[in-house]
């Protein structure tokens, strides 16, 4: 029942602090975490997801180039035969303070399943992962902890 997640910070982005915390929190929660760290290319995300038969890809982007960096990722997944993989994005996804609804729309349109605003705590992502991956909720008495 151990779900595998590929985690990383996309593009030329080096913001490593949130990534380390996410890894720690997801591990605690019992997920099998493949953390690619920072400065991860689209190809690296896909290769890791294929290789580990991952259940989800979690993309972080903090530095503002998220839009440029994420374009085409869903299409590449499709080409690689994992077109249906669950795909999340979070962080400071665009340049500049922007109403989150706009940002969410842009990223949903790009093929992400869920999008998270700046300042999202790991627990929020975890709760959605459990739901989307069909895992019992911790508060339901289940869970893998």
């Amino acid at each position, binding site marked *: 029942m151990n779900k595998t997640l590929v985690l990383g910070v996309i593009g030329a982005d*080096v913001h490593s602090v949130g990534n380390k915390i996410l890894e720690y929190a997801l591990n605690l929660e019992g997920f099998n975490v493949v953390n690619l760290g920072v*400065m991860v290319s689209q190809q690296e995300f896909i290769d890791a997801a294929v290789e580990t038969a991952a259940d989800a890809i979690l993309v972080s982007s903090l530095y*503002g180039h998220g839009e440029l960096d994420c374009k085409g990722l869903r299409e590449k997944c499709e080409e690689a035969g994992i077109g249906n993989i669950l795909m999340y994005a979070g962080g400071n996804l665009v340049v*500049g*303070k922007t109403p989150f609804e706009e940002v969410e729309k842009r990223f949903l349109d790009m093929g992400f399943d869920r999008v998270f605003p700046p300042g999202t705590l790991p627990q929020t992502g975890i709760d959605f992962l459990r739901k989307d991956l069909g895992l019992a909720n911790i508060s339901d008495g289940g869970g893998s902890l």
Partner: protein
Amino acid sequence: METTDKKIPMDQFLETRKEVLAQWPTGAEVDFREAVEYHHGIPVNKRFPECLRKADENGSTLLQPRAGVALVNEHIELLRYLEEHGQADLLPTTIDSYTRHNRYGEAQTGIEESRRENRSLLNGFPAVNHGVAACRKVSESVGIPVQVRHGTPDARLLAEITIAGGFTSFEGGGISYNIPYAKNNPLEKTIRDWQYADRLAGYYAENGVVINREPFGPLTGTLIPPCISHAVAIIESLLAAKQGAGDITVGYGQGGNLTQDVSAMYTLKELTREYLDRFGFNDVRVSTVLHQWMGGFPEDESKAYGVISWGAAAAALSKATKVIVKSPHESQGIPTKEANAAGLRTTRQVIDMLREQRMPMTDEVRTEMEIIGRETRSIIEAILKIGEGDIAAGAIRGFEAGLIDVPFAPSRYNRGKVLPVRDDDGAIRFLDFGQLPFGDDIKAFHNDMVAIRGRNERRKPNFQMVIDDIYAISKGRLVGRPR
């Protein structure tokens, strides 16, 4: 070839130079002689070194924002706005992340998409792509000095273009622009590449043009104990001075505990001076910069103003030469020019209200200064030892051995074993020393301080406590108390 602390011989420098200028078409625009002439024509009040010296003489603290957008005219408009409506004393040109990673092709795409969408899709100004003439247009459009601020492991071409472009200060260093800003770049290479940038500054200096150089103080901006950033500042100052740089600004990112911050600022200058003098660089000028809180910011803008103000107060009370200012948009994204100017004005009010005041030399400050001094010297001496007297070799080997280790850094050339945590008063201490070369007394001090907090919070200090501290300021506290 091992990287060592030798001044690059002129012929070798000029050889490399050809390669560097060939990296992107705009390199051809650089003409050193002409650039020296150009700099001689820059008025004194637009030169970084002069402005910093004057500020130190007057005991005033200068204000500088971060700012950069994709397109030239928009960037000029932004800087002018910050000069006029933000009352900035010094201006930046913050470089975008593609340029920082020498991905000039992607930067070009960013420029073009920004033109098309009529908004900046880049997180900074791609100076290399824009070239020398554009940089001069930028620096000529404002009435105060402009500095290049970036985070570029290999900044050789950027330095060539921007200095020829009339900028009078260049931030960065082979460690501070690698370890927090890169993943796969060996220190051998980045230190060597930064020796080039320093040599370039030295080359200008030999021709009568002093360019300010500023090692990046805050590193990962997240719970950095002062001795770590001080050690990096000292190493990079020594490396820069060896290549002939004559004017250096050493930096520190605010931690939040006033006693520790003031002690850090006082020792930063003292220790840098001490080592520069020891190695014979008595005539290199040293000034200081305090960065307002560099970690995660609160989302709420009115709370962000509180964080900004407390950073301004720390800068004023420690008599920093300059302060780098955050904006109320910090947690959200690159600030609009209005938000950026607002952060500057908040800072201006606090700095100017406190200009007559400074933190007195209390027992607490004295103790803290002594500890920072001992820790920093332990690190530098261990590095000199492992480098057999050579600070460059020592730094490279020292990072490998974990004698110096930057918390939370993305680089694989950093050990990443050290864990910082706040003590019960909010000062940043060590939870895990990794391989830092500290004596038992220093270790005991940190352990004691951390233990007091653990007792008060009734929990064992561990990684969860560190995480709580990382979130603390964005959640409205300095110390991440258990929820």
